[in-house]
């Protein structure tokens, strides 16, 4: 199987990667880049533990080819956690104990971020519809839904929507990660 070389912006840094054509984005992130916040579970795009954002859209890293990420921006939980916006998500989840084992949590957080950025997290019904692709086995969802409702209520959502439409998902004001980034070859 042949290799492909792709340029992907990962959490604000441009990365040039040469990977087998069939390599999955989840494996690239976890095994090559050490970004283990996205988890592997069902392998068939049902459970959402491997969710990352590609150009602001949630995708399942378990079924998304790294080759298809060429020229795109990938945001993982590690990158999102560096942003100012993250604090609100953290507070919403932590105060409500809306996580237990934590295996699915990054997928829920990133899905909610994408929903809210797209203006599709306005109320409880939006959250239920939008989180259909994320399974949590521990919480029974009630606490996650409460966190989602809190995020839906907060004004930050509309501000982010207004300011962030069409922009890259590079975290604004990201701490150690430069927003414009540098090119780094990883093999």
């Amino acid at each position: 199987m042949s290799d492909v070389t792709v340029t992907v912006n990962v959490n604000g840094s441009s990365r040039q990667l040469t990977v087998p054509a069939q390599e999955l984005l989840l494996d690239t992130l976890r095994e090559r880049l050490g970004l283990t916040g996205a988890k592997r579970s069902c392998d068939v795009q049902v459970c959402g533990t491997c969710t990352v954002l590609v150009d602001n859209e949630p995708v399942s890293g378990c079924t998304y080819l790294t080759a298809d990420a060429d020229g795109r921006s990938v945001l993982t939980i590690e990158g999102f956690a560096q942003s100012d916006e993250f604090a609100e998500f953290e507070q919403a989840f932590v105060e409500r104990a809306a996580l237990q084992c934590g295996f699915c949590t990054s997928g829920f957080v990133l899905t909610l971020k994408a929903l809210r950025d797209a203006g599709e997290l306005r109320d409880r019904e939006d959250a239920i519809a939008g989180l259909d692709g994320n399974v949590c086995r521990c919480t029974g969802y009630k606490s996650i839904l409460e966190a989602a409702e809190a995020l839906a209520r907060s004004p930050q959502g509309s501000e982010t929507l207004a300011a962030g439409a069409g922009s890259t998902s590079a975290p604004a004001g990201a701490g150690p990660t430069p927003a414009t980034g540098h090119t780094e070859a990883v093999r």
Partner: protein
Amino acid sequence: MSSTPTAPPGDALTRVGRSENRKDAGEKIRGKAQFAGDLKVPRMLHGKVLRSEVPHARIVSIDASGAESMPGVVAVLLGSDLTEFDPYWGHAIKDRPIIAVDRVRFHGDPVAAVAAEDEATAEAALRQIVVEYEELPVLDTLEKATAPDAPRIHEQELRPGLFHGLGQLREEGGNVCYRYRLDTGSVELSESEAELSVEGEYEFPAVYQYAMETHTVIADYGEGEITLWASCQHPFLVRAEIADLFKLPIGRVRVIVPYLGGGFGSKSYTKMEPITTALSWKAGRPVRIANRVDESMATTRRHGMRCRMKTTASADGKLLSRSVRLLLDTGAYADNGPRVCATAGDAAPGPYRWQAVHVDANCVYTNTAPAGSYRAFGAVHMQWIGEMQIDQLAARAGIDPLEMRRRNLLTPGEPVRPDGTGKPLDADLIGDVEKAAAAVGWDDPKEPWTGRGVSVGLLAAGAHPVSRASVRMEADGSVEVNVGTTEMGQGARTVMAQIAAQELDIDLAEVTVQGADTRFTPYDRSTGASRSTTLAGLAVQRAAADLRRRLLETAAGAWEAPVEALQIRDGVVHGAGEQATYAQLIAKRFGFVGGEVIGEGEVRPETGSGSYAEGPVFWEVCIAAAKVRVDPETGQVTVERTATIADVGKAINPLLVERQDEGAVLQGLGNALFEEMIYQDGFLTNDTLLEYRVPRIEDMPRSMQGIIVENADGPGPYGAKGCGEGAQAATPAAIATALADAGVQMKELPFTPERVWRQINEPKETQQR
């Protein structure tokens, strides 16, 4: 479990009983929490397992030469390699080879394992291994396995494992590997006197725990020493079993447990550790095996069951007798089947006063994946059946189901086991069930095709009462709790930290709790059976109190004052006109800026041996109420409301208690409405999450209420007792009784639209009158 050594500082419980944020929340939400699959060990290889393509066969030959010669392949492990050890393991029954020796007993039984430089190479190498099978008759159902002429799935003598502890094995041969009986009074006599009786045959499906993190193990077989990083709930039992299997002293096996991505029993006892260790032994390098979902489904599951139950009562609704025969499908290997069987036997009578009870519970080998622990095992199997029969008798006696329970439920202090052995009832069940019923609007008017139900049960909880802990204070006053409890989502690290903070009267932020490393962490039997807060928590409380005593003695010595004259407020010791922080006291003790003070705590059986028969440590209350709506056109059941009781004695962290039960409700709802492993001729037909349906967010009941009951009647710290399983046993039962109240009596779980529709439209004979 004797009383706490000294009273906690001050009078008030200020650090426990509070809904503190989870200690692990920050690293989990940031994606920084490490699970076994996130770890890399130097020189680590990747292992994959070749699993049997057939459900039952003799292995004629295996040719692995194609795999062995592939670039990147370091080792191939076959049964023929295992001449140096007795390859059979199993904590209850030593019936499971590390890897198939001469026979495969289920579709998915490990036949070979490959270690390679990367996972893709290992996987490709599996396809180069040629196995020739001579197929044997497939006993894929309980009927076939228990037929009089059924061949034995295990021909060899059954040997008890290290942690069997449940009495006799296989009394009468065949495929029954364990039998548990309760007998009291004369069921025949009671049945002949009873005016009312109900009887039925019921089926409970095999289900998959689906901890989202699959079983993942890194094993490093070094020089006379084995190190494991494992997604396991019971590191100390794994350690003992690996030491026994590979003939090493216990201290030469080290098990390190990172965070677990869910457990629910699926990671209890030993699972993928033996095969990973053996592969590392063969390869001479550390190896990681990370199961995929279909492999974890072939590693453990919940027991399917067939049950015949008959319950009788007098015309005025006094319960008289119950007779139960049940067969549990434990699959190809016993795993925890014997304990599941005993627990189901214990749960079968239900918490009622009986004249006579007969329970005959049988654990049966079949040619399907091995079945083990899953949250509330035994109780979840039996409660829905028993409670539906209670409701049927209530209806025939003309009594409200709640009133029927008021009249017949056990009260505190009454014996739970009908023969009077073991722990008597330690909870107010009548008070609890009334609260649950009220929460779903028990007396509200009812619309057509809706129903409300309650369910009451008990689960033998606590397992063997052995837990130790140490609490260590560093020179700066920071504290580490060393306790073997595995953090798998339940919030144990937070609760243990709160207990230590309470005993030392310090901020929660000062306390750290890490995962177990058996080289350093004191022994704890296991994380399961709702035992951790109660038993490991008590050990932590005692260890922290021991540390406090040592610190007070240091102060007393320095100030030449009696210990009784000293007080602790907010981590500062006062007395004799002096005051000092803990850090200052440690500096006084050592005359130096270093050193540490360690307190130790231990929990062991107070009397007797702590055996299952003497137990349980406590009876976990399993109470729920539900309101359901059924669509008669489609058979679709919607659970609209649930209320569950967390009868926890004392909630160390009330929010975490509620959150536990919410999770248990949804798992119970999955068990009731969707989840079912479907075998056809010994082949699992739905081994992906596409076909195995777990509850999603839209399946959540519109209202889920968790009610915490605190009667300080538990044996744990501050009167606490465990939770988290009761709601799982009680939820399918409450849904079943509510559905019956809506007019649909079901005898087979899950209540899929098709089954419910058929029951409405093509009703079979439902009960004996």
